[in-house]
C-alpha cells in the first residue's frame, strides 16, 4: 500500500522480491551479532523454559490427548486413534457451535471496524478536548470482562434494566435481551462492540495521523468537499489499517468465550454457545478431555488457516 495506487496495483516481480529478500538478509547480517559463545543460551534460557513448559508441551500433550478417550477422573487413558476426530465431524453440536461462532464473528466484526473508523474520523477532526474523546472511546477496553458483563447484564435486566425501562416509557413491550433466542447473540455482539472498539479506534487514529497532508491539500485545490476527501483520500489511505483491524478482529472474535460464558452461559437453548464454550463444557463439565482436545485441534486448524491467509497477504503487500 502506498500513496500512489499505480505501484500497489502491480505485484512485485520475482526478481524484485528476491533482491529484497537478499537485502533483508544483508541487513540482518549487518546488525552484527555482538556476542558469540554461550551467552545467547543464557539470554534465551528463561524464555525457553517457560515457552517449552507452558506452550509447546501443552500443544504436544493436548494433541496426544485428542487420540485418547481420557476423562478428567480416569487414570489410564486408552488410545482410540482417530475416533474423537471422526466423532467430532459427525457431531451436530460441533457444527452448530462453529456456525454460531462464525455468526458472532460476522455481526461483531463489521460494526467493530466501521464504528472504530467513524470514531477515529470524528476525533481526528481536531476538535478541542482530544483527551476526553480518546478516554471515552478507549476506557471501556480497559475494563475486566467481569465488570463489562456485570454492568451490561444489569442494563439488560428484564424488569429493572435500563433498556426495558426505556422501552416501557415509550410504551413498548420489554425485550428478552439475553433470554430471547432471536436477540441473545446480537446483545452479546453489542456488548463486545462497546467493550473492545477502543483498540481498533486507536489503530485508526494513528493511521489517520500518518496520512500525508499534501494529499488533502491537493484535494482541496481540486475543489473536493468533505465527503469527497473522505472517500477519495482518507478511506483509500486507510486500506492497510482496515485490513489489519479486520483480520485481528476476526481472529479475536472467533475465540469468543468470556462474555458469552458470563452473560448467557451459552443459552438460551444453546443458541449463543461458541466453539470455545463447547470445548470448555466438554472438557470441564462433561470431563471428556480427549474429545475436548480433538475439537480444540479442529478449531486450531481453522485459526491457523486464517492466520496463514493474513500472513500471505501481508507478505504480498510488504
Amino acid at each position, binding site marked *: 500500500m502506498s500513496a500512489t495506487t499505480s505501484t500497489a496495483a502491480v505485484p512485485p516481480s520475482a526478481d524484485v522480491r528476491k533482491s529484497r529478500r537478499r537485502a533483508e538478509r544483508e541487513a540482518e547480517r549487518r546488525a552484527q551479532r555482538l556476542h558469540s559463545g554461550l551467552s545467547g543460551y543464557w539470554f*534465551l534460557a*528463561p524464555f525457553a523454559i517457560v515457552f517449552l513448559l507452558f506452550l509447546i508441551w501443552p500443544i504436544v500433550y493436548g494433541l496426544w490427548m485428542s487420540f485418547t478417550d481420557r476423562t478428567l477422573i480416569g487414570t489410564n487413558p486408552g488410545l482410540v486413534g482417530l475416533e474423537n476426530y471422526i466423532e467430532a465431524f459427525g457431531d451436530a453440536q460441533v457444527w452448530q457451535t462453529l456456525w454460531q461462532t462464525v455468526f458472532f464473528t460476522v455481526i461483531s466484526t463489521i460494526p467493530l471496524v466501521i464504528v472504530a473508523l467513524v470514531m477515529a*474520523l*470524528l476525533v481526528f*477532526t481536531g476538535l*478541542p478536548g482530544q483527551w476526553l*474523546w480518546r478516554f471515552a*472511546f478507549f476506557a471501556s477496553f480497559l475494563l475486566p470482562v467481569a465488570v463489562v458483563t456485570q454492568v451490561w447484564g444489569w442494563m439488560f435486566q428484564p424488569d429493572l434494566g435500563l433498556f426495558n425501562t426505556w422501552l416501557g416509557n415509550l410504551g413498548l413491550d420489554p425485550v428478552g435481551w439475553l433470554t430471547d433466542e432471536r436477540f441473545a447473540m446480537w446483545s452479546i455482539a453489542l456488548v463486545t462492540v462497546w467493550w473492545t472498539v477502543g483498540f481498533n479506534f486507536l489503530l485508526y487514529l494513528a493511521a489517520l495521523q500518518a496520512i500525508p497532508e499534501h494529499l488533502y491539500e491537493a484535494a482541496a485545490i481540486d475543489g473536493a468537499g468533505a465527503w469527497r*476527501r473522505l472517500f477519495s483520500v482518507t478511506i483509500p489511505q486507510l486500506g492497510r489499517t482496515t485490513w489489519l483491524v479486520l483480520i485481528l478482529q476476526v481472529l479475536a472474535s472467533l475465540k469468543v468465550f468470556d462474555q458469552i460464558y458470563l452473560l448467557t452461559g451459552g443459552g438460551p437453548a444453546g443458541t449463543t454457545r461458541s466453539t470455545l464454550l463447547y470445548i470448555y463444557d466438554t472438557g470441564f463439565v462433561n470431563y471428556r478431555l480427549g474429545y475436548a482436545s480433538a475439537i480444540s485441534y479442529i*478449531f486450531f486448524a481453522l485459526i491457523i488457516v486464517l492466520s496463514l491467509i493474513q500472513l500471505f497477504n501481508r507478505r504480498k503487500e510488504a
Partner: protein
Amino acid sequence: MATASLVLPEVATRRAIRGADNRRATRLLLGSSASARTLAVIALVLMTLVWLLPFAWAIITSFKTEQDAASAATVWPASGWSLQAYTNVLTKGDLPIWMLNSVITAVLVTLITVVVSAMAGYAFSRTMFRGRAFALALTVASIMVPGQILIVPLFQQMLAFQMVDTYAGIILPQVVAPVMVFILKKFFDGIPSELLDAARVDGAGPWRTFFTIAVPLSKSILVAVAIFTFIGAWNNFLWPFIVTTDSALMTIPVGIATVTETYGLQYARTMASAMLAALPLLVVFMLFQRQIVRGVATTGLGGQ
C-alpha cells in the same frame, strides 16, 4: 518560582501547538464547510455520551441504597446517595483479597514477562548460537497459537505440578509471550550496532552491554510492553478462572464473576465491586495515556 516560570511557557507552547494541530486537522478533513463541522461535533458528542452511558449507569447504581437499586428503575436515587455498597464490599466479602491477588499476579506476570521477553529478544537480535534460526522460527510460529485452546492440557499439567490454586499456577502460563519477544527483537535490531559495540570494546561483557546500553535505549518499548502485559493480566479471565477454585486465590475478574450469586441480586453492591475492579486500570490509563496510544500505534499490541 523559577521553575514555574520555566514550566508555564512550555505548557502554553505545547497547548498552542496542539491547538494549531487540531485546527489543521479540521481544515484538512472537513474543509471550510461550517455545516460539516457542526455535524461532526454533534455526532462526536452523541457518540461519546452513548459510550459513557454504561459507566454513568453503573456509577449511579453503585451509589444507591440496595432498596433503591432493586425497587424502581429510576435513574436518580429516590432516597439519596449512599456509600453503603462501597463500605459493604470493602469490609465484608472477599473483594479486598481479590484486589490484592490481582495486584500480585498482574505485577509479577508483567515483571517476569518483560524480563524474560527482553532477554530472549536480545538473544535473538544480538547473539550468535547454534539453533538460533530454528528457535526464532519456532517462537514466531507460536504467535499463531490461540492460548485458549490449550486450557484442557494446561489444566492437566497444573494438576500434575500441583499448581492448581497457587499463584504460580495463575502466573507462569501467562508469562509466555512470543509476540513480545518478537517485538523486542525487532526493536533491538534497530539499535545501531556501533553503540553496543563500543561498550564491548570498553570491556563490558554481554550482561553489562545488555543492562547498561540496550535496556536504557529501549525504555519506551519496554514500558509499552509492560503496560499491555499488565492490562492483559489484570483483565485475564479464562485462565485464572480455570486454575482457581479457592475464593481466597481468585483474582478480581474471576471473583466478582463467580461469587456474585451468593450475594443474591444486590445490584448496588455488584456495581460497586465492578467500579472498584475497573479503577486501577483507569488510573493506569490516565497516567500512561500517551504511552498507551503510542504503543497501540507502533506495535499493535494488545487485543482481546
